[in-house]
């Protein structure tokens, strides 16, 4: 029917400094459909949509909308083309009423004041029509997150938008609110609107979308009708990697339990449950993998174990000693090392030299600090030692760490953590964003630690990494451990199903734990 699709974004490229956010992504959207853009955090979904709604301009590529090329310089221009986006972080002024928020930036204040009543009654009318339950005179600050989201959606409808983009709309919603939102989206499509829906949650995509594209590393790797795929296939597409070379390793000989987590609960930063009743054990000489689509509680689990976010219930025991309730610095003094998920945000301090980065947790301990003063020679020696042992490519130990490649930064982080001689090593994302050479190197180092009898827990969204070095793989879904699979590539389908939240009867539930 359509010679030209409703919307086509062709070969969109966008880079920020050295980071490639969009590496030639192409999508086509039909009029009147719900189109889901699926992918892990950082896959490039939001960047692509920010380009479509005029917030970002692409470096390369073109957008064709309703048969005509579209060049946008601002979100206002997008609105003029009837394209609107509801962002993950709401763009509302908390101290203003709904009506006042809608009037922001809509022309001269004097004219607006006279139109206040008209705007307000238009809001009521639209709210009734879509069943959104938005009251124009409510102050935004007093609304729940779900209500604020409906205010945002209604704002887009108020501007007469035909193409509605939603960025991770369910991330902040309760299950009931999610149901309501998905119903609303179906209703909008019946009215002839078109919806693009960004998500990393498979079940929502399956429930509501007509078609789905999977993004990975800034590219669209897979597009299909939702009715012709299943969560397992989508999960595999989301996390798929090139197969790594198999690393030689001996069979695990697990010893005594080093780390035991029992019935652990914690909330995310919005106060919603993120880790729900997780229990697991890690023994000497084994690597336990935690697989899952990102955003299922992995970050919170790691932070809770290290004392960086408060837990609400449960226990974390290291060598039989309770860690729950200890401060991060107290946990740092235990034989517990942690390779954090995001090295730029947490693992290293970018504008400082290697020397000052290798003492991060031990800055006030001997031999690096003597009577409160830093021993610069001891620090430099230690840094040189780590650089040599881990083959970190750096001109000298006093160069700033942001001049190193991601792989070399990660090598240094792993080296620093292993140098603390931990009994237990918690790794959240071992090889994210680093080159193949560095990847194999750090994986081998971690395997060596296993041989040496360390207990290791590896949280990863990259299945190949888990298959390559883990001895068993637990699957986390919506904050729960829902199954265990052996690190056997022939069990990939089973793993994919578990990651999509589908418990299977044949899964060895009995061996869970």
């Amino acid at each position: 029917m359509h010679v030209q699709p409703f919307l086509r974004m062709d070969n969109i490229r966008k880079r920020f400094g050295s980071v490639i956010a969009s590496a030639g992504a192409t999508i086509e959207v039909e009029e009147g459909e719900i189109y889901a853009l699926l992918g892990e955090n950082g896959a490039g979904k939001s960047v692509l949509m920010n380009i479509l709604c005029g917030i970002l301009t692409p470096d390369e590529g073109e957008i064709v909308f309703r048969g005509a090329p579209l060049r946008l310089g601002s979100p206002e221009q997008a609105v003029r083309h009837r394209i609107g986006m509801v962002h993950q972080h709401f763009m509302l002024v908390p101290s203003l009423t709904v009506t006042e928020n809608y009037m922001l930036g809509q022309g001269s204040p004097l004219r607006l004041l006279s139109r206040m009543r008209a705007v307000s009654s238009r809001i009521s009318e639209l709210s009734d029509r879509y069943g959104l339950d938005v009251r124009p005179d409510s102050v935004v600050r007093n609304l729940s997150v779900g209500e604020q989201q409906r205010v945002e959606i209604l704002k887009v409808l108020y501007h007469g938008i035909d193409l509605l983009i939603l960025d991770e709309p369910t991330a902040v919603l309760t299950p009931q609110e999610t149901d309501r939102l998905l119903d609303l989206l179906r209703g909008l499509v019946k009215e002839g609107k078109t919806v693009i829906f960004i998500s990393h949650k498979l079940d929502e995509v399956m429930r509501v979308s007509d078609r789905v594209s999977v993004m990975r590393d800034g590219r669209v790797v897979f597009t299909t009708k939702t009715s012709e795929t299943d969560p397992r296939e989508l999960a595999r597409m989301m996390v798929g990697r090139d197969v790594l070379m198999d690393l030689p390793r001996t069979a695990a000989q697990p010893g005594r339990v080093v780390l035991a987590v029992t019935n652990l609960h914690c909330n995310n930063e919005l106060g919603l449950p993120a880790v729900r009743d997780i229990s697991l054990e890690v023994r000497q000489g084994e690597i336990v993998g935690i697989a899952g689509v990102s955003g299922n509680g992995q970050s919170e689990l790691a932070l809770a174990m290290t004392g960086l976010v408060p837990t609400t219930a449960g226990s974390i025991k290291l060598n039989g000693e309770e860690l729950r309730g200890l401060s991060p610095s107290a946990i740092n003094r235990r034989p517990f090392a942690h390779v954090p998920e995001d090295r730029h945000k947490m693992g290293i301090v970018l504008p400082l030299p290697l020397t000052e980065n290798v003492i991060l947790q031990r800055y006030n301990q001997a031999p690096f600090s003597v009577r409160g003063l830093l021993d610069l020679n001891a620090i430099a020696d230690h840094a040189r030692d780590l650089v040599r042992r881990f083959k970190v490519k750096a001109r000298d130990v006093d160069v700033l760490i942001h001049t190193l490649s991601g792989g070399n930064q990660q090598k240094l982080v792993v080296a620093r953590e292993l140098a603390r001689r931990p009994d237990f090593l918690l790794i959240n994302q071992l090889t994210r964003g680093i080159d193949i050479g560095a990847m194999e190197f750090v994986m081998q180092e971690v395997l060596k630690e296993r041989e040496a009898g360390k207990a290791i827990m590896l949280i990863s969204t990259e299945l190949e990494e888990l298959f390559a070095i883990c001895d068993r793989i637990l699957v986390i879904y919506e904050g729960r451990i829902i199954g265990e699979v052996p690190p056997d590539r022939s069990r990939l389908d089973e793993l994919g199903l578990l990651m999509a939240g589908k418990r299977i009867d044949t899964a060895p539930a009995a061996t869970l734990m």
Partner: protein
Amino acid sequence: MADINIPPPTNATSILAGASLRAGLSRLAKATAPPVVAVLLALLAGAVLLAVTGFYAFDIFTVMVNGVFQDVGSIAEMLLRATPLILIGIGLCVAFRCSIWNIGAEGQFYAGSCAATFCGVQFAGLPSWAHILLILVAGAAAGALWAAIAGLLKVLFNASEIVTTIMLNYIAIFMTSYLVTGPLMESGAAYPQSAKLLREVWLPRVVPSTRLHIGILIAVALAMIIYVFLFRSSAGYAVRIVGINSHAARYAGISVRRSILLAISISGSMAGLAGAMQIAGVTHRLYQDISPGYGFEAIAVALLANNNPVGAIFSGILFAVLDSGSELMQINAQVPQVLVFIIQGMVILSVVGFAALKFQSARPQE
């Protein structure tokens, strides 16, 4: 970008390096080039401004420099002016390195002045050296406490220190007015001022027949000490990590709250000490408007020094030269003093501009 960000501390590298002298020198050049270029650009812009308003810039600058460096007496006066700027500036280096935007040094200076005056007119009979020590310590402690109020509000209630320190400035300034018109007012005085400090507690002078007191030497020594604190002590390391990346600080087990309180208290103590020295070394009594805005000018001193305490010695002197020079220009060349204030403003703007440029190029956009 919600926060104002301090450019990366290039000098920290050279300290931990143990590198060769040549590498050290090249780093020093790299660290000092931006502020020097910024100052030169600002002076150039000032020259244009002077030319537009009908003055011959070269003559004016010559008058200024010759006047400031005319003789020992004029140099001493300039250094006297630099003393509080350096002291407050090195304290602000610590706060700014911790990403704490202490705009309240002015109020902390007043708090220190009041405490010093109180101790200076009391406790007669103490040995002179002990009394002086008491005055200086009291001033520093009062400044630290005044700043710690803002620090506590920050760590307990997440109140913006920019707002609270500005508000505390007003309280301190009006409190001083109250003291010199009431409890501390000299009996029988015609003007609101405190009693004169006993001669025994006046700070010793370092250059005969000038007003320059030992405060300048103490300021330089403290600049070195603060430098060592920031770049060679573990507590200073913690302060800097908190300032650059609080997530990494928490991961490292650093108490973010403790570092914030420490940094703002140190910065307040330096401002309070500067106030005490102004009382014990220069005015010898407290009155209203005791500070011509040292606490604000010192913000520029710290910024121009890229928050390096040793650099703050030089930037403090530079601002003192501009200050002293501005008076001379007005007297000897009939150049309105406000033009010099404009030039000072340009120095600050170009320094901040350089810092922003450096910051942008050093960081990928989000």
